[in-house]
């Protein structure tokens, strides 16, 4: 065997390995055509290897007859791949080309092309006659067409990554062509130098697959490399050991040889696992270079954070390795606000020192939040412009994503609901995230979900405890105040008046005991009647304030409409509307709705400085929804809630607690000078007809 036979052997093995790696991804047309090219190139290399190894000199002519057709087929298959890569149909040219390859093969095997062929010292001596020009012309046409397609594609593509991919293909194709025509140089004719070009092309394509995700084969490539390296090492190791042992023990019997071979196989098998780990490690380091350690950290994340209960620490453990391992510009964790349901970026990690004034925030009804909740998959930025459910995004919402150079949004789900969002910025290199990286992030998000949930639960528990404490105080205070108010009301009016009535009764008694009915006694009786009437009215007012009779007698619609009257009295333009057929709800629910609306109306009257307010009731089959909106000055919800908790003004929180206790839900949306919208909704179980 000469050194020249090694070149096609190496290219054959490389093509074969690439072909095996491509097989799992054959569902894409471009991958299928690429596999076709690899097959053709492998056959070409194998034929060349068989020719140059010259094991059977009498077969030289046969292998040489295969070579011209295999060469043209390889070039044509690569051109076909270029067309598929450019998303063009194969076209008539490719069909004609394949027909010519078949014709060439037929003519060649029929002995019409190669006149003679033999190999001496690894150098091929042959005569193709005039057919050489025919083959050259076909090859030249294919080469020219391929170059034209790639250059056109390169020039027309606005996408930098795409241009890079095309650039690599262009470089590979050029090298393939240059080496392919080495046979025309008399000094090199007969040497398999063209396979150097072919090998270089294969390596460039493999690099483009890895670096620029040419064919989405990176994961396969990484895994495949481990196993193909293992196979090569073990085969070589086994053969070498066998060869050495045979050198020393030449007089072994067949059984002895068999036993030796088996022993060696066991030895090699024992080495399999440690060697595989070593190679996997080596290849991972080769692929991920300086980010390897961070990737390892990400992979062992669940162990690291399982016992961490501080949300800030958990966020740090997640965000820092992501930014470092993925070379991301930034990463952030978003969690939902308890009251509004909006997702806010609460922890941000940036690669550099630069900061951005834009804060990432998704409203609770943002289609992205809905999509992440329902799909539970990572959302790539470019898919936001693709997925139809996200058509409802506003221009300014998209602008924020672009300004932040966001690349990925991973849902963090716990117990089937969205408990957070991991937002990852674009890579510093601008290269998109590979599927493998996205899988890694998703795995990590899933593993982090439990820790995040625990930490958040602890946080909410603390807030909840404080809130309950404040609520209890509030309930106690309210009760005391209410008692005080009722006592004062009764003391200042009814008690005084009834005392007066008692005094008047005594006077009448005295007058009557003096004998006869006189005018004075009648006047006293009239005054007494008037005092008792007044007392009754006041008592009724106090009772009404405790529970409005309109609610029980005339229903929720009427009572709520009535509640707007006090706003109208202070000059706020009010609008009441209703959709759907109204029906009665359980009394405790109606009272809760009434009290919440009363609280909202009080807030508008006291604080909002609104000129307009509206109350809308929507009766649906499954729920009642009430919206109270004003155009007032709004307020800072989170600050108000914080201060409410700390100072004990529990109006808003009181509303929420009251409604949630009955299975309902309150949402408050407010912005400075943008008014306030309070949405209250109750699920309906068994509605009763409205009176």
């Amino acid at each position, binding site marked *: 065997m000469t050194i020249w036979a090694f070149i096609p052997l190496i290219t054959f093995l490389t093509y074969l390995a690439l072909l095996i790696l491509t097989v799992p991804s054959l569902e*894409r*047309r*471009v991958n299928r055509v690429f596999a076709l090219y690899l097959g053709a190139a492998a056959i070409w290399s194998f034929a060349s290897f068989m020719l140059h190894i010259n094991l059977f000199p009498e077969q030289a002519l046969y292998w040489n007859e295969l070579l011209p057709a295999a060469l043209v087929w390889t070039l044509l298959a690569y051109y076909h791949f270029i067309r*598929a*890569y*450019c*998303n*063009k*149909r194969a076209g008539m040219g490719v069909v004609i080309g394949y027909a010519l390859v078949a014709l060439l093969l037929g003519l060649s095997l029929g002995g019409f092309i190669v006149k003679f062929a033999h190999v001496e010292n690894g150098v091929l001596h042959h005569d193709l006659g005039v057919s050489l020009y025919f083959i050259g012309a076909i090859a030249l046409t294919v080469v020219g067409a391929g170059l034209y397609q790639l250059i056109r*594609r390169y020039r*027309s*593509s*606005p*996408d930098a990554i*795409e241009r890079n991919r095309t650039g690599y293909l262009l470089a590979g194709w050029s090298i393939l062509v240059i080496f392919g025509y080495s046979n025309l140089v008399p000094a090199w004719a007969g040497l398999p130098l063209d396979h150097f070009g072919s090998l270089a092309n294969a390596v460039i394509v493999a690099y483009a697959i890895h670096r620029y995700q040419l064919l989405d084969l990176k994961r396969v490539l990484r895994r495949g490399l481990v196993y193909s390296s293992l196979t090569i090492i073990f085969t070589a190791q086994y053969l070498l050991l066998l060869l050495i042992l045979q050198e020393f023990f030449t007089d072994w019997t067949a059984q002895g040889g068999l036993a030796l071979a088996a022993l060696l196989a066991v030895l090699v098998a024992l080495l399999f696992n440690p060697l595989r780990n070593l190679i996997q490690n080596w290849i991972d380091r080769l692929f991920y270079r300086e980010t390897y350690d961070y990737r390892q950290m990400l992979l062992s994340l669940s162990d690291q954070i399982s016992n961490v209960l501080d949300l800030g620490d958990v966020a740090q453990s997640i965000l820092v390795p992501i930014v470092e391992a993925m070379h991301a510009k930034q990463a952030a964790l978003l969690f939902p606000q308890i009251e509004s349901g909006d997702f806010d970026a609460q922890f941000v990690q940036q690669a550099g020192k630069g900061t951005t004034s834009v804060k990432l925030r998704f409203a609770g*009804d943002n*289609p992205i939040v*809905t999509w992440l909740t329902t799909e539970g998959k990572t959302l790539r930025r470019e*898919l936001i*412009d*693709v*997925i*139809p*459910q996200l*058509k*409802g*995004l*506003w*221009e300014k919402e998209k602008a924020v994503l672009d300004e932040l150079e966001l690349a990925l949004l991973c849902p963090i789900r716990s117990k089937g609901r969205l408990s957070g969002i991991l937002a990852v910025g674009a890579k510093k290199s601008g290269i998109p995230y590979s599927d493998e990286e996205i899988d890694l992030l998703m795995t990590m998000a899933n593993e982090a979900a439990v820790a995040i949930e625990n930490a958040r639960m602890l946080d909410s528990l603390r807030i909840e405890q404080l809130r309950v404490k404040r609520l209890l105080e509030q309930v106690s205070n309210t009760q005391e105040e209410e008692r005080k108010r009722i006592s004062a009301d009764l003391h200042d009016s009814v008690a005084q008046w009834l005392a007066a009535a008692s005094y008047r009764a005594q006077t009448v008694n005295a007058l009557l005991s003096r004998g006869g009915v006189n005018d004075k006694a009648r006047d006293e009786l009239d005054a007494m009647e008037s005092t008792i009437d007044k007392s009754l009215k006041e008592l009724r007012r106090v009772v009404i304030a405790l529970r409005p009779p309109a609610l029980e007698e005339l229903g929720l619609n009427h009572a709520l409409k009535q509640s707007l009257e006090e706003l109208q009295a202070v000059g706020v333009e009010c*609008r009441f*509307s209703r*959709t759907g057929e109204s029906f009665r709800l359980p009394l405790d629910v109606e009272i809760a709705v009434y009290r919440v609306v009363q609280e909202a109306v009080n807030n508008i009257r006291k604080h909002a400085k609104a000129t*307009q307010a*509206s109350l*809308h009731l*929507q009766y649906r089959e499954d729920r009642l929804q009430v*919206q109270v*909106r004003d*155009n007032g000055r709004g307020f800072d919800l989170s600050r108000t809630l914080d201060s409410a908790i700390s100072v004990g003004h529990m109006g808003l929180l009181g509303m929420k607690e009251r409604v949630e206790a009955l299975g309902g839900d309150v949402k408050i949306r407010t912005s400075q000078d943008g*008014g306030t*919208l309070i949405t209250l909704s109750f699920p309906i179980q068994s509605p009763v007809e409205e009176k």
Partner: protein
Amino acid sequence: MAEIVELLRQGRDEEVWQKCCGFIDLSLQDFMKIQDRLLLEQLELLRRCELGRYIINGAKPGSVEEFREQVPLTVYDDYAPFLLNKRANALPKKPALWQYTSGKSGEYPFRWAPVTAEQLKEIEELLFALLFFSGCKRRNDINFREDDKILYGMAPPPYATGTMARVFPYQLFKFLPPVDEAEKQSFEERMQRGFDLALSEGLDVFLALSSVAVAIGDRFRQQGNKTDLKALLKKPRAIPRLAKGLIKSKLAHRPLLPRDLWSLRGLITFGIDSSIYKEKIRDTWGVEPLEFHGCTEAVLIAMQTWDHEGMTFIPSLNFFEFIPEEESIKSREDFTYQPETLLLDELKPGNYELVITSLHGGPFVRYRLGHLVKITSLRNEKLNIDIPQMVFLSRVDDQIDIAGFTRLSEKTIWQAIENAGLSYEDWTARKEVNGDPRLHLYIELKNNGHVTAGQVASLVHEELKILDAPYAELESFTHLHPLEVTLLPENAFQLYKRRQQASGADLTQLTPPHINPADETINFLVKAAGAATEEAGQMVEA
């Protein structure tokens, strides 16, 4: 657009399909969410501009319900002070381009409407959707590739269909002739040049007004199998195609038709007559035409999918409201009456007048388009599309009310004439009351001389009875035969066209309206054209 083109070039067909055609897979609930959200975005834009404040008139709707309660329905008059003078600064967003449609008599010569860059982006995706639907057999089936050849037979810019040509991905496909060249040519020149190129280079997609698609077929039929050898020698690349076509037509024993020359992958037609000419177009071109519905103000409203049945509404270009037909009629009889509107998820099958609010910074708010559409079903069972399906019926004011029994639309009358098997140049009709109310049809027959007006009236009357049940009842209840026909002299429509051209009329005003033309138009068609024809005849005799 570059983005879709790039995705197509990279072979990412699934993403392209989802981006452009994915709206057909939305649930009705998702559809409404998109509508609601984009409406709220639009309301913010309207609040900040002069036109918005003028139209909304102080109201501050913060939800869809409030929007429907507080904002009045509008018509073009409300926008005329802003749009006729192209006051870009008063609009919700700066327009990327302006397009127009011809106004009806007594209104404005043109009704201008702006289109924003964001709307154009949506339109681009929808044009791809139209293209993909026209050539597919199932979901994700994209049958178009770079350099496919497209012939464009619609109006030039600034008509809305011309805007579509500009927006169409001409860098990806090969337009015959190229768009820049085409815009400098007259419609006739453009079509001629396009066909010359198509003969040599092939044709994959034809986008045309339905009348144009039919007229081309008619020309082929009239021409028979005659070929101009001299002309052919100038374009030798056309010879194989022509030879193949001639063989196919000979084998089928009929004149050469476009279907013999090209195997179209997509055919998209537009116009009220699309459904009337559907069969004829399929016979001529060999593929089923895909219809869509749109107009200058709304651009695109709905489009058919690959079953070529009802059209599916588009969620992201306009916010839709619907006035039930009875309410619509009532509001037209009493201008002070504000009809109630329904949203897409509140509809039942039936007839409705369309009301749109432009999204993405467009100017129209609760705008009555005057389009009467029929909701044929609440979903497309066959293709599993969960969005109500529609067909366009007519403009609400393009209907002829006969004795309160029936309202005949342009489409119904046209269909009746077609079904009657008449060979005609063109027609126009109006309601005339001379004692009893009657529908008066003025029609110019081709190769006139063998059919009388009475025969035409009888044929069309019978077809109208089949097509419109209330019309049939009119006769059975009242014994009224409400159709009168006048046969117009030969070339009446041709002379009308020449007169309009001489007076510098716009492209869309070269033919008289089909419904309710003015007295002057009828007088010209009946008398002046008749006199001119007679005069020409006398000159020939002399």
